[in-house]
């Protein structure tokens, strides 16, 4: 989290299974003419590799790297729909409370073991903390909260598993996907004790060679299960080195000097560099959709933001248009809701827009209420000039509204350590993303078990995971119930309406606010080919570019 609005999504969560159906399909056709030589790539990324176990969350660009070793049970198509991937079939009950997942036959992990129903059960049980309670696997981390809607996971046949949910969920597959984070891990890794974090064993097109906090080296998996349209075994590349380069300048100079073949960037503080690279003839720059919604989290549990006046004052004080211009150079749009227009929850109603008079009035009301001036501390990454510039810009708006904002320079490690115990008064972090709500709802609901008093973590210390993802630490039964209802609603129009109401409720209470949306970009030199060409097994394609970059399975290097 070097950049304030970039880091994010480090603590995300688990999986559980039921069943669904999907048909096995052929590999999508691709360009067959050119010789797809191998070779190796060096990729510059802006996130590090804290580890590969359930609790270690790979963020954005390092998730891209992790996904060369790992695959997910399901995949998301470019239209947002979830399709089976390592699974072959997914079936659900009519009430969306029971899902049957069937594993694709003939896939094996890098350690040679078969992917089957047992492996799926182990994965799901590890993510929801069941194996941790038994002392068999390390902590699930925030995944335990993410998957808390699951009641039971049952193996029904060699290759099939049934997942039962506490509350009906039409988008369970999105939870199973967790925005690309819930990997298919080998049971040997999950049950391998401390090595779980350092030895990733997956099913992906590449195998681990070595990993460090700042580097992941992978090599071709000769037994990979997929082929291209010509019947050539995938992947094409012999190996990839992912290097963590915290400084933007390092990635820019790296790709320009050919030290890097590929480099990833974020719109948070790197707009100028992205635009400059777009003009460069030697490289191609692709961008993600504007589907990332960085938030200003206001801690509703502690002073001063346990007061609505304080939250309202801050929300009104931020000049989002000015911020987008000065900090993002209008590369991304100023926010009009806590999520973006692409998301099903998008609703401008109740969103407290920039209004200096109202901000001053709310701050004055706070003073009457609390007996002192509105003052709060805001952390930023010490040493990151972009981070400092971001908070300084916000501080400027606060000062204009008569609010005192203290800047807390902290190391990245400190910010991460303190963020999820919800110790900060306020902070900026990108957690919410996408078109659906599986990766949004956990951050804005108060109890991820859905009020299930019988949930397996309920009486354990891990019960804190139910609310840990809600960085604003608020309990709002109105919005909670609206979100539960929406998730159970099969009718799209009705679902959208319910979500809109929930959004309005949260926005009018000013639980959190958003300044501007965010995108990601990836630059690759012209000798890198095949980006986005390979299709999915279930037909269609993945999104070309996301926060976790591109898929390297079908990427190759041209002649020289």
């Amino acid at each position, binding site marked *: 989290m070097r950049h304030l609005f970039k880091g994010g999504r480090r603590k995300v969560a688990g999986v559980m299974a039921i069943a669904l159906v999907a048909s096995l399909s052929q590999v999508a056709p691709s360009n067959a003419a050119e010789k797809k030589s191998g070779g190796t790539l060096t990729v510059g990324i802006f996130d590090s590799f804290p580890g590969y176990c359930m609790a270690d969350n790979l963020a954005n660009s390092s998730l891209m790297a992790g996904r060369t070793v790992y695959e997910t049970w399901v995949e998301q198509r470019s239209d947002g729909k979830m399709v089976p991937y390592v699974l072959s079939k997914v079936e659900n009950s009519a009430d969306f409370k029971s899902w049957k997942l069937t594993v694709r036959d003939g896939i094996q992990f890098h350690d040679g073991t078969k992917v089957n129903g047992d492996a799926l059960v182990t994965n799901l049980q590890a993510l929801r903390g069941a194996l941790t309670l038994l002392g068999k696997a390390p902590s699930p981390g925030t995944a335990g909260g993410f998957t808390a809607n699951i009641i039971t996971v049952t193996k029904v046949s060699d290759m099939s598993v049934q997942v039962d949910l506490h509350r009906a969920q039409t988008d369970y597959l999105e939870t199973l996907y967790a925005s690309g984070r819930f990997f298919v891990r080998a049971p040997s890794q999950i049950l391998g004790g401390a090595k779980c974090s350092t030895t990733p064993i997956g099913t992906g097109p590449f195998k681990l060679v070595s990993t460090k906090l700042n580097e992941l080296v992978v090599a071709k998996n000769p037994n990979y299960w997929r082929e291209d349209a010509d019947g050539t075994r995938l992947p094409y590349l012999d190996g990839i080195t992912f290097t963590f380069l915290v400084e933007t300048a390092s990635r820019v100079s790296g790709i320009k000097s050919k030290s890097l073949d590929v480099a990833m960037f974020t719109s948070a503080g790197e707009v*100028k560099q992205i635009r400059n690279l777009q003009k460069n003839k030697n490289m191609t720059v692709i961008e993600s959709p504007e589907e990332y919604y960085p938030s200003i989290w206001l801690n509703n549990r502690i002073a001063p933001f346990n007061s609505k006046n304080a939250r309202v004052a801050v929300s009104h004080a931020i000049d989002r248009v000015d911020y987008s211009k000065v900090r993002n150079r209008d590369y991304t749009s100023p926010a009009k809701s806590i999520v973006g227009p692409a998301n099903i929850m998008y609703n401008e109603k109740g969103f407290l827009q920039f209004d200096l008079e109202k901000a001053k009035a709310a701050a004055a009301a706070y003073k009457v209420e609390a007996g002192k001036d509105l003052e709060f501390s805001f952390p930023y990454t010490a040493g990151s*000039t*972009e981070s400092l*510039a971001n908070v300084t810009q916000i501080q*400027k708006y606060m000062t204009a509204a008569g609010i005192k904002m203290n800047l807390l320079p902290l190391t990245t490690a*400190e910010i991460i350590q303190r963020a999820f115990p919800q110790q*900060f*008064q306020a902070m900026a972090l990108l957690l919410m993303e996408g078109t659906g709500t599986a990766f949004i709802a956990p951050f804005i609901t108060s109890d991820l078990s859905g009020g299930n008093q019988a949930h397996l973590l309920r009486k354990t210390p891990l019960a804190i995971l139910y609310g840990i993802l809600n960085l604003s630490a608020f309990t709002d039964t109105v919005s909670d119930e609206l979100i539960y209802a929406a998730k159970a609603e099969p009718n799209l129009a009705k679902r959208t309406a319910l979500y809109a109401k929930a959004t309005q409720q949260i926005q009018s209470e000013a639980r959190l606010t958003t300044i501007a949306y965010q995108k990601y970009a990836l630059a690759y030199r012209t000798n890198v080919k095949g980006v986005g060409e390979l299709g999915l097994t279930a037909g269609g394609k993945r999104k070309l570019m996301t926060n976790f970059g591109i898929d390297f399975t079908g990427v190759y290097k041209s002649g020289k």
Partner: protein
Amino acid sequence: MSTNKTYTVPTYAAFGWLTFSTFLAVFGPLLPVESFRTIHGDFLDAKPFTAGHWFGVDSNGYDIFSGIINGARLSLFVAFITVGIGGFIGSLLGITAAYYRGRYDSIVNTAFNVVLAVPNLVLALALVAVLATNVDINEAVPTWRRLATLMISLTVVIIPILGRIARASALTWSGREFVVAARSMGMRDRHIIWRHIVPNVLPVLIAVGFLAVGVVIIAEASLSLLGVGIPDGASWGGMIARGRNDLEYNPHALYFPIIALALTVISTNHLGDVLRGRLDRREARL
């Protein structure tokens, strides 16, 4: 004597630059220049010689000229205070150690060696990291306290550097006849140290102190580049760190602070050299 070439044009230039930047440092806040923290949203990436922004504006909207002026204040303040305090403590230890010798001397000498065994930057980084740890995470630490943490760390680095020189110099002086004579006359140690040794060691220390100022300025800049220098990236080093990402687009955001920093270090180094040269000649004439 007309042929005494101690003060050459570079010496005047060095002295002039230091005086000028000290002037900026002291009177900077009184000058009609906007605060360096002001974000000029309408002038992003302005090139040098833009009206109102002589040195241009960086990509964050900070005016470089006011940054340089403010940086002069912080960089020089930190450097001179650090060298002053570090030099005082170091020479106190070094001179007394050289004078009294014995076990006290070997303890002081070992302590110096211990600190010197750790590379400057590593030591400063570690001290800043430990001293800056806070119990209440939301407590806003005032800038002066963070500045103090940094200065304490750099002082620890400087103490043995100057202390060793003070000790070595004091060692040669305390062996001279006039000290032995003073001792044999039954003078008090404090009197001998103060009247006979300090005046002779001081010039050397001042000369080396000028060099140490350069060392501290560069060390602070390195710390800034690593994110733990003068708070909020307000020093010249902090400006360089900020300019790093702008290197290709706004080279001026990088070049101005580098030039300011280099000129200052060149000046202090040069003055240190000149002083040392004069001392050597004085020694030679004795």
